[in-house]
C-alpha cells in the first residue's frame, strides 16, 4: 500500500501539484558583482528571472548642479569622479565642450598628450573590466594578472600628474603640465610589454572552455535592440554595429592615426552575446596600444615641442552659447551639453553618461535568463555607477 495514500495518477505516473512561489531577491546595492552601488530587485521562479527592476541613484552627487556653481577649471575634478575608471576621458570630454563653447585653441602637443592619456586610460579601464568580469564568473587569476599592467599605467599617470585614479590633468585649453623626462620612453616600453602580456590574457580567459560556456549565447542583444536603447561604445560594437566615434567623427588627432575597430561577429555563439562584448574590449586594448605608440612617436618626432596650454584668460568667462561634444569613452559616448551665459560658471551642464544609457536595457533583457546569467550580463555591459548616477 502506498504511503502517499490516495494520489492522482495518470497511467502509471503519480501527478503531484508542486506549486512554487516566485521569489523576490534583492541584488545590491552592496554586491560584489554589480560593479558599484546598483540595486536590482529580481523576481525569480526558481532559477529563471521573471522580472528585474534596476534602482540607481545611490551615488548621485548631482554633478550637473555643481557645474552651475563652480568655475570651469574648478569643475574638472568633479568630472574625474563620474567614470572614475576612465577619468582622463571625462576630463577631456568636459574640456572639449568648454573649448567648443569658448572657441579655445588647444596646442598640438597638448592634443597628442591628451590622446596618449585617453588611450592608456582605455587600456586601464578595459583591464579592470577584464579582471572583474573573470571574478564575477569565478575566475580570480585574470584579475591579478590584469592589475599588474594596470598598476604600471597608474604609475605612469602618477609620474605625469601626481594622481593614480582621479587625475584632473586636462584643463580647458590644454593640459596641466608637461610630461617628465623619460616618460615617452616608458610608455613605448609599456606598449611593447603589454602586447606580449595580452596574449597571455587571451589564452587565460578568452579561449577558456568554462568562460565560453558561461558567456556564449548569454544576454544576446541584437543590433536593432542595441540601437533602440541608445547603446554606444563596446556594447554596441559587440552587437555587430561598427560605429566608433574615433573613426566616424574623429576628434583631436584620431584622423591622423591608424587603428582597427573590433566588432562582434558571433565567433563563439550569437552576435551580441556576452562573449562578443567581452572580446571587443580585449581587441580594443590592442588597438589602443597601437594608437598610443603612434601618438608617442608623433610627440618624439616633434623637435620643437610647443606649449601645453593655449591662450586663455585667467578667469575663463564664456559668452552665451550652447555646445555639445561627444567623445568615445571606454564605455560609450560621453557627451557634455553646456549652456553658457557669459559668467565664469556654466548656466546648465548636462552630462550624458554612457553607462546610464547602457544599463537601462536590464529591465527588458534580464527576464527569461537565469540568475547566474544576470551576473554575466551585468558584467558584460561594463558599467560604472559613478557615471550612471553622476
Amino acid at each position, binding site marked *: 500500500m502506498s504511503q502517499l495514500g490516495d494520489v492522482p495518477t495518470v497511467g502509471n505516473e503519480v501527478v503531484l501539484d508542486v506549486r512554487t512561489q516566485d521569489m523576490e531577491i534583492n541584488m545590491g546595492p552592496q554586491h560584489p558583482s554589480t560593479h558599484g552601488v546598483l540595486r536590482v530587485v529580481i523576481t525569480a521562479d526558481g532559477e529563471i528571472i521573471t522580472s528585474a527592476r534596476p534602482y540607481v541613484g545611490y551615488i548621485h552627487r548631482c554633478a550637473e548642479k555643481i557645474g552651475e556653481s563652480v568655475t570651469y577649471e574648478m569643475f574638472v575634478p568633479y568630472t574625474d569622479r563620474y567614470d572614475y575608471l576612465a577619468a582622463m576621458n571625462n576630463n577631456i570630454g568636459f574640456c572639449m565642450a568648454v573649448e567648443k563653447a569658448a572657441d579655445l585653441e588647444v596646442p598640438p602637443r597638448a592634443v597628442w598628450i591628451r590622446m596618449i592619456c585617453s588611450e592608456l586610460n582605455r587600456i586601464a579601464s578595459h583591464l579592470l573590466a577584464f579582471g572583474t568580469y573573470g571574478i564575477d564568473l569565478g575566475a580570480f587569476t585574470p584579475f591579478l594578472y590584469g592589475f599588474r599592467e594596470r598598476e604600471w599605467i597608474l604609475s605612469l599617470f602618477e609620474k605625469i600628474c601626481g594622481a593614480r585614479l582621479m587625475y584632473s590633468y586636462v584643463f580647458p585649453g590644454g593640459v596641466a603640465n608637461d610630461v617628465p623626462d623619460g616618460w615617452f620612453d616608458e610608455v613605448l616600453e609599456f606598449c611593447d610589454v603589454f602586447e606580449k602580456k595580452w596574449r597571455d590574457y587571451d589564452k587565460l580567459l578568452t579561449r577558456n572552455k568554462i568562460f565560453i560556456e558561461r558567456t556564449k549565447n548569454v544576454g544576446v542583444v541584437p543590433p536593432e535592440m542595441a540601437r533602440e536603447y541608445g547603446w554606444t561604445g563596446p556594447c554596441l560594437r559587440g552587437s555587430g554595429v561598427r560605429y566608433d566615434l574615433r573613426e566616424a567623427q574623429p576628434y583631436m588627432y584620431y584622423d591622423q592615426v591608424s587603428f582597427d575597430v573590433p566588432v562582434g561577429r558571433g565567433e563563439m555563439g550569437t552576435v551580441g552575446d556576452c562573449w562578443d562584448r567581452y572580446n571587443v574590449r580585449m581587441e580594443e586594448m590592442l588597438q589602443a596600444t597601437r594608437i598610443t605608440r603612434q601618438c608617442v612617436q608623433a610627440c618624439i618626432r616633434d623637435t620643437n615641442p610647443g606649449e601645453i596650454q593655449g591662450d586663455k584668460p585667467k578667469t575663463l568667462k564664456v559668452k552665451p552659447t550652447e555646445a555639445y561634444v561627444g567623445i568615445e569613452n571606454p564605455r560609450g559616448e560621453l557627451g557634455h551639453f553646456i549652456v553658457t551665459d557669459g559668467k565664469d560658471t556654466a548656466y*546648465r551642464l548636462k552630462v550624458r553618461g554612457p553607462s546610464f544609457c547602457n544599463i537601462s536595457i536590464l529591465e527588458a533583457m534580464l527576464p527569461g535568463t537565469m540568475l547566474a546569467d544576470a551576473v554575466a550580463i551585468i558584467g558584460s555591459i561594463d558599467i560604472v555607477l559613478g557615471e550612471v548616477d553622476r
Partner: protein
Amino acid sequence: MEFEQLANRLAEICPGAIVEKVDLDNPDKPTKDPYVVVAADRIVEVMDKLQTDADLRFDCLLSIGGVDYPDVMPKAKKGQPEPELIPGRFEVVYHMLSTIKNHRFVLKVLLPHDDEPVCPTVSNVYSAANWHERETWDLMGIRFEGHPDLRRILCCEDWVGHPLRKDYVFPKEYHGISAE
C-alpha cells in the same frame, strides 16, 4: 547630411512641425550647434519620422536634457516705462545620432514656465528615452505624458522638489539628518 539638409528633409516629411530653425549665425540665440524647435504636440510624430525615414535614420537617441530659464523681471530704470516681465521657459533638448548615416541632430521643445510643464513622451519610439525622461522629471520637473513609469530615478523616492531648477531651495534636513 548637414544640418540644413536634415532640417529641410524634416520639414518636408513633417510639414508644420518645425516652429523655428536656429542656425549658427542667429544673433539672438547664439549656439555652436544649430538646432530646430519643434512644437510639443508634434514631437512624437517627428521622432517617429526621424527614426524611420530612409534619408534621416536616426537610430540612437543620445540624450534628453532639460534647461530652466526662469521669468526675468528687468530692473526698473528712472524715467523709463515700467519694464515688462520676460516670460521664462523650460527647454527639452534632444540630441540624436545616426550610426547608419553618421550624422547628428539637435531638437528642442519649448514649454511654458509652469510649475509642472508637460511634454509628450517619446519612449514608445525610442526605448532609450525611458530613463532619460525619468531623469528629466526627477531633476527638472518636466512631466512626460504617456510615460509608462514616471518616477524618480536618481533622487530618493521621497525627495521633495526638483534639484536642477533655478529656484530650488536646498533642504535644511532630510529624515533627521541636518544639512547645515
